[in-house]
């Protein structure tokens, strides 16, 4: 530095310097815009697949189901039941009657049954949203030529039915309810493990731990764990929760083995694995929140004779709580989006029933997206896009609540 100062090397070409400055400024700006474009492309790409025209071909053409010239959509309940009776075997009809008597079913429900059992729509081809908007006429012509018996309609793969229906192998009648419930069950156990342990560890490190080797080791270790790839946690979960603790995670210790699960690949095992995964995140965030509580509050508490735990419980924790909760919400949104560790732990590929206990088989929203994305047919890619939208909406509302929490309760000392 000193030598440079001693022999100054002035560049007096101010115009040149300014020009290169503004060129670089453009480069930096362009990079930022590129980043935004990437985000926009990602979202638009998902939207593009989630909506669009589909050509549907029915096993039985709906027009043939008209009774006395009344189309299927306008028939009343009795007429619909007659149509159903005529088109499916009496055994199948009796089974449906046994599930829920037809007299008690709603008209919409019966129409749905006819849709699934009689019409059995099959997706012949699907078009993206962009294609559907820009070349609607062409698509209509193409569909009429290639699939003469098919119906062309604009389909939104994301719908309230999609969210409410259980998983099924038929693209048109599948949904994400099973996966959403699986995610919720998993997150419940993740929280039960990670929240108390994480907050406890943070309190220990910030309030109790002396500055000695052991405690420094714990701190370094937590920082390192936060950087371990999630798939490694999956392998750890497979070895410990699924295999070594199988009696516990399959429920056989409690004598409540779910008949459908033969091993420890359960909601509980998945939740605990994700719990270990988010534990370092919760600890680090909680530590920051606790550190932000001013020392004077603690001293005031000690001054009136409170013990250490009384001080922590009544003064430090209430003041750190918004920060701790914000960190926990962020950790949850990380856990909800995790896929890789759950694949390794053994998420189920196809289950159509809702998880009902900690020992149920499970699938989660990201796992569902992964499976649909891996299938070559376009309609499943569209389903994946719709499921992504559901996932993003969930994550967005979680993050928004974290921001609200932070703004609502943040205090300044």
């Amino acid at each position, binding site marked *: 530095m000193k030598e440079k100062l001693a022999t100054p090397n002035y560049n007096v070409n101010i115009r040149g310097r300014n020009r290169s400055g503004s060129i670089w400024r453009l480069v*930096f700006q362009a990079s930022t815009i590129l980043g935004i474009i990437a985000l926009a492309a990602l979202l638009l790409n998902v939207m593009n697949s989630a909506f669009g025209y589909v050509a549907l071909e029915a096993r039985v053409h709906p027009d043939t189901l008209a009774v006395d010239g009344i189309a299927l959509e306008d028939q009343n309940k009795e007429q619909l039941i007659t149509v159903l009776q005529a088109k499916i075997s009496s055994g199948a009809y009796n089974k449906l009657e046994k599930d829920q008597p037809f007299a008690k079913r709603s008209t919409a429900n019966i129409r749905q049954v006819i849709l699934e059992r009689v019409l059995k729509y099959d997706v012949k081809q699907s078009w993206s949203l962009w294609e559907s908007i820009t070349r609607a006429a062409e698509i209509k012509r193409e569909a009429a030529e290639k699939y003469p018996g098919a119906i062309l309609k604009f389909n939104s793969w994301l719908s309230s039915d999609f969210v409410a229906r259980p998983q099924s192998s038929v693209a048109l009648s599948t949904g994400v309810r099973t996966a959403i419930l699986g995610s919720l069950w998993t997150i419940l156990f993740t929280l039960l493990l990670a929240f108390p342990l994480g907050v406890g560890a943070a*309190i220990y490190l910030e309030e109790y731990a002396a500055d000695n080797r052991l405690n420094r*080791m714990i701190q*370094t270790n937590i920082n390192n764990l936060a950087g371990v790839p999630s798939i490694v946690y999956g392998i*750890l979960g497979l070895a410990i929760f699924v295999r070594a603790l199988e009696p516990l995670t399959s429920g056989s210790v409690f004598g409540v083995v779910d008949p459908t699960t033969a091993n420890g690949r359960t909601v509980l095992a998945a939740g605990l694995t994700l719990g270990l995964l988010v534990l370092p995140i919760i*600890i680090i965030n909680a530590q920051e929140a606790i550190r932000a509580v001013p020392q004077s509050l603690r001293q005031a508490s000690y001054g009136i004779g409170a013990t250490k735990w009384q001080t922590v419980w009544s003064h430090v924790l209430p003041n750190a709580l918004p920060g701790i909760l914000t960190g926990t919400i962020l950790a949850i949104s990380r856990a909800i*989006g995790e896929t890789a560790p759950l694949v390794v732990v053994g998420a189920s590929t196809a289950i159509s029933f809702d998880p009902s206990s900690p020992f149920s088989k499970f699938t989660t929203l*990201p796992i569902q997206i992964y499976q649909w*994305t891996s299938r070559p047919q376009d309609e499943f890619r569209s389903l*994946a896009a719709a499921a992504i939208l559901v996932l993003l909406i969930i994550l967005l509302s979680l993050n928004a609540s974290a921001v609200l929490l932070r703004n609502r309760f943040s205090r300044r000392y």
Partner: protein
Amino acid sequence: MEDQKKMSLVSSFPKRTSRLRGRRRVGETIIQGLLFFSGFVSIFTTLGIVYELGKEALLFFRMPEVSILESLTNTVWQPHTGNFGIWPLVTATLMTTVIAMLIAIPLGLAVAIYLSEYATLKARSILKPVLEVLAGVPTIVYGYFALMFMTPLLRSIFGRDVVEIYNTASAGLVMGILILPLITSMTEDALSAVPRSLREAAYGMGGTRFEVALQIVLPAALSGIAAAIIIGLSRAIGETMIVAVAAGAGPNFTLNPFRGAETITGHIVRISGGDLSYDSIDYNSIFVLGLLLFFITLTLNVISQRIVRRFREVYE
């Protein structure tokens, strides 16, 4: 009399306080023990990873058909035919990582410099949340994006017969976008930590904004930037879902980014996707690969922490 009264008053206080001090508070001790235990769970986790992964990995290398030397020289990974060459998985991991870093480092640094040195307060308050959103999107969504957007894009640019449906290039490019916000936010923190006085001094000497950013601020924040890049590298190596969806299924020893190849993480996901039977070669092999990943990322994280600690410039 007066003295006695005083004595009794005084004695009643110290006695109680001394008893207070002497009393063993069982509740407090138990709580402290519980809190210590919570802190110690993280140590158990690390020990668990090393022990469980190490145990199964040893079992793998004890198998008669496996030898360490062979797995380091063989270029075929096919557990069922007795080929355990780790190179196809390593080259694929390297390729996706290198492509990702080629995108993420220059873009990440540029965005960080823009945010910290150029952007107005208003622009920053819009751009930072956008980056946070980008960072919060689950990786499976990026995987979908790679397969449904990046691959068709590459195929339309370079030709359908050059670019395979599954290829490491599109996985790597999208991984770069994934890591971008990570590198940006860490770099931006490092740049913002450089004191204003340094910039003012440089402006006072007649430096342009770009010169100040490049010659004054960037060098001062170098340790933080290096740490950010290494963390990004570690994240790229451990990234799973993008490569599992878009990079291809099946180990392939190739350096062509337009061909399909399976990374270490992609292989683990594919192998464990089916019902994996315990103590099979496949089962043990994922523990070897997991251990390898764990040590690579651990080393990178430790290096990054060291850099921050040793080379950080501290300003008053």
